[in-house]
């Protein structure tokens, strides 16, 4: 009976976690839209990421296209994603929109400034910090860096900071970075948890202390583990003085984007040049796939709800039947006792209330045990009985394999106080319902016959 009662609890909890997954998906879609809007005049230039840059110790493995690694593992480990998921494999290849990962000498690309219609060139440095781990894939061994966080250096000059959207916009506590600052850092929420710091604290990054001025709440896949600091700080911190990993070119207007991109490509054929138009297409494709995932998550949620509803129905019916049979058995077993009680002066009402009380207390006890069991076993139970987050297809959105340690969203089961109260209330009600008939039968027992019963 206890387990019967725990099933609806587990089902409801799982439902709640599914709901939060689809809410997350909704956020991601909104964020993608925002990215689309702010990238219309933007061209991202970077060197194609090399495997050395990613920490692979087999540079000669040349048959992988950059996109396969640069964009996360969308097509790296398909088994991890649900059927509906197919994230485009090359979302900028790094933490910041358009950011590359291969250092390039800043001075080599100063001529981009002089291309017609170029409004500004913003050099950015992006370096991942983390721990190396050896993995076996395709029959070969790779050393892969599992990033703990990603440092993005942004030139903190007023002309850049005030005019171009290169810093996160969603500040959840503290403030954003300001022009001409140094020795300060803007962390993501993920970072604050990783470092165990808050706004105003000092944080040690690669052996150097920085003051945390703010926290950004960007929840996009790329931004979750990204911290921002001034470009010069980032360059000296990572021994990359004079080097950047990407140049973000802003044009005077969106009409000239294609011409500028072509001009950059002819000047520097080694650069990967990505226009806002191309990125727009990609982002829209991404958005579509997110929406597909959301639809599938919502469908699964509806299914989960109906499954939960059925389970609750079955559990209710089963519980009252169990109480009914148990109490009928008890009444039969204790016929002689009932006879005795009646012989010494118990009225029908006395006997009936006695057995009702017993049934209610019994199922209340079972309810308490059931809640204890579901508190312990519901995660396992619901995992066995119900579709899990990864089955929903939604988890894949957040799991990037390589950055999985920091960004994975797992479904968790929570027993809320309301749920506990509902379960206890149901236990009492079902106990009363199930013992109604047995108690009535007990009260009707004819004492003379009951006394003969052994």
């Amino acid at each position: 009976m206890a387990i019967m009662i725990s099933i609806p609890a587990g089902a409801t909890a799982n439902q709640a976690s599914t709901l939060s997954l689809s809410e997350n998906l909704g956020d991601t879609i909104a964020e993608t839209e925002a990215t689309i809007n702010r990238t219309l005049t933007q061209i991202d230039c970077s060197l194609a990421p090399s495997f050395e840059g990613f920490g692979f110790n087999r540079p000669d493995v040349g048959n992988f296209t950059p996109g396969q690694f640069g964009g996360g593992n969308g097509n790296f480990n398909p088994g991890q994603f649900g059927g509906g998921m197919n994230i485009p494999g090359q979302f900028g290849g790094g933490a910041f929109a358009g950011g590359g990962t291969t250092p390039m000498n800043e001075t080599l690309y100063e001529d981009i400034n002089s291309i017609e219609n170029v409004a500004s060139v913003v050099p950015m440095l992006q370096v991942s910090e983390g721990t190396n781990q050896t993995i076996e894939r395709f029959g070969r061994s790779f050393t892969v860096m599992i990033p703990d966080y990603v440092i993005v250096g942004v030139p903190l000059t007023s002309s850049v900071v005030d005019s171009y959207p290169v810093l996160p916009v969603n500040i959840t506590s503290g403030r954003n970075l300001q022009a001409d600052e140094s020795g300060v850092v803007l962390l993501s929420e993920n970072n604050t948890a990783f470092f165990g710091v808050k706004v105003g604290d000092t944080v040690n990054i690669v052996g150097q202390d920085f003051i945390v001025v703010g926290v950004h709440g960007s929840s996009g896949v790329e931004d979750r583990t990204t911290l921002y600091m001034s470009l010069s700080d980032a360059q000296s911190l990572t021994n990359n003085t004079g080097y950047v990993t990407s140049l973000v070119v802003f044009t005077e207007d969106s009409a000239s984007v294609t011409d500028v991109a072509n001009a950059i490509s002819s000047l520097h054929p080694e650069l990967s040049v990505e226009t806002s138009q191309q990125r727009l297409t990609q982002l829209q494709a991404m958005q579509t796939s997110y929406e597909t995932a959301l639809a599938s998550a919502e469908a699964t949620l509806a299914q989960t709800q109906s499954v939960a509803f059925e389970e609750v129905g079955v559990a209710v019916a089963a519980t009252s039947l169990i109480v009914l049979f148990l109490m009928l058995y008890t009444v039969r077993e204790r016929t002689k006792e009932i006879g005795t009680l009646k012989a010494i002066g118990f009225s029908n009402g006395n006997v009936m209330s006695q057995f009702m009380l017993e049934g209610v207390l019994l199922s209340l006890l079972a309810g308490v045990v059931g809640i204890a069991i579901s508190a312990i076993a519901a995660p396992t139970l619901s995992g066995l009985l119900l579709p899990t987050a990864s089955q929903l297809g939604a988890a894949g959105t957040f799991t990037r394999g390589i950055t999985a340690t920091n960004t994975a969203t797992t479904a968790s089961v929570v027993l809320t106080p309301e749920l506990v109260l509902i379960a206890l209330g149901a236990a009492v009600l079902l106990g009363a319902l199930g013992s109604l008939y047995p108690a009535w039968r007990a009260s009707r027992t004819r004492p003379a016959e009951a006394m003969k019963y052994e």
Partner: protein
Amino acid sequence: MSEVVLKLENLSRKYTLGKRNVQALSNVNLQVNKGEFVSIMGPSGSGKTTLLNVLGCLDKPTEGKVLLDNVDTTKLPEKELYKIRRSKIGFVFQTFNLLPYLNARENVELPMECCGKPKGERSKRAKELLQLVNLSGREEHRPHRLSAGEQQRVAIARALANDPAIILADEPTGNLDSKNKQEIVKLLANLNLTQATTIIMVTHDSHVASHTERMLLLCDGKITREKQGLHSIKKGQMCPHCHNTIQPSDVVCPSCQEKL
């Protein structure tokens, strides 16, 4: 003339067992006075238990009247009978029938509990009754920690709880060894002497029956014989030498002239 507690008039009880009609009681007439100790003997199937059940309002007669304290219980509806059982009758069973999950005191309190006596009063009376049946100090013991004789004594205390007009004992010694048998009979006889409790006891055992005042023999649903038991000697109603009736005031037996 003593007060009449129980009067049976032309009492009959028939029932069908399968296709067979059984006449468990036929035309039983009996009068029991207050303070009497009556035993009913008879072979198996003679109707002893049926008689006791009818007296105890656990069963209804097919015909006849049962006047208990001048109330005809056969006229009362089923729903009202529990009040009679609660206040006028105390039951003692062959198998004691104590509730196993209650201790001695709680078992004795049970009949008082269902008629709403306050807890303090209940507990006090239960302790007094347990003292009366020589079980002081064992109040908090559950039945499984008591011997058979002790359990029956708890049951007797329970039967006395609501100060009933009559105690109905259905083979109270049937499940006891001879030593305990002796003790229970003595206890009942003692209660009858000191508390003037009216007791009707069904028994197989003629030795047990001989301790009572009146011995009735039930055969095929009829009272076929009645004789005086040894208890009358104690009460000063029978000469211990010639077994003829005497008056309590007699110094010498009027029949055999022996000194009393």
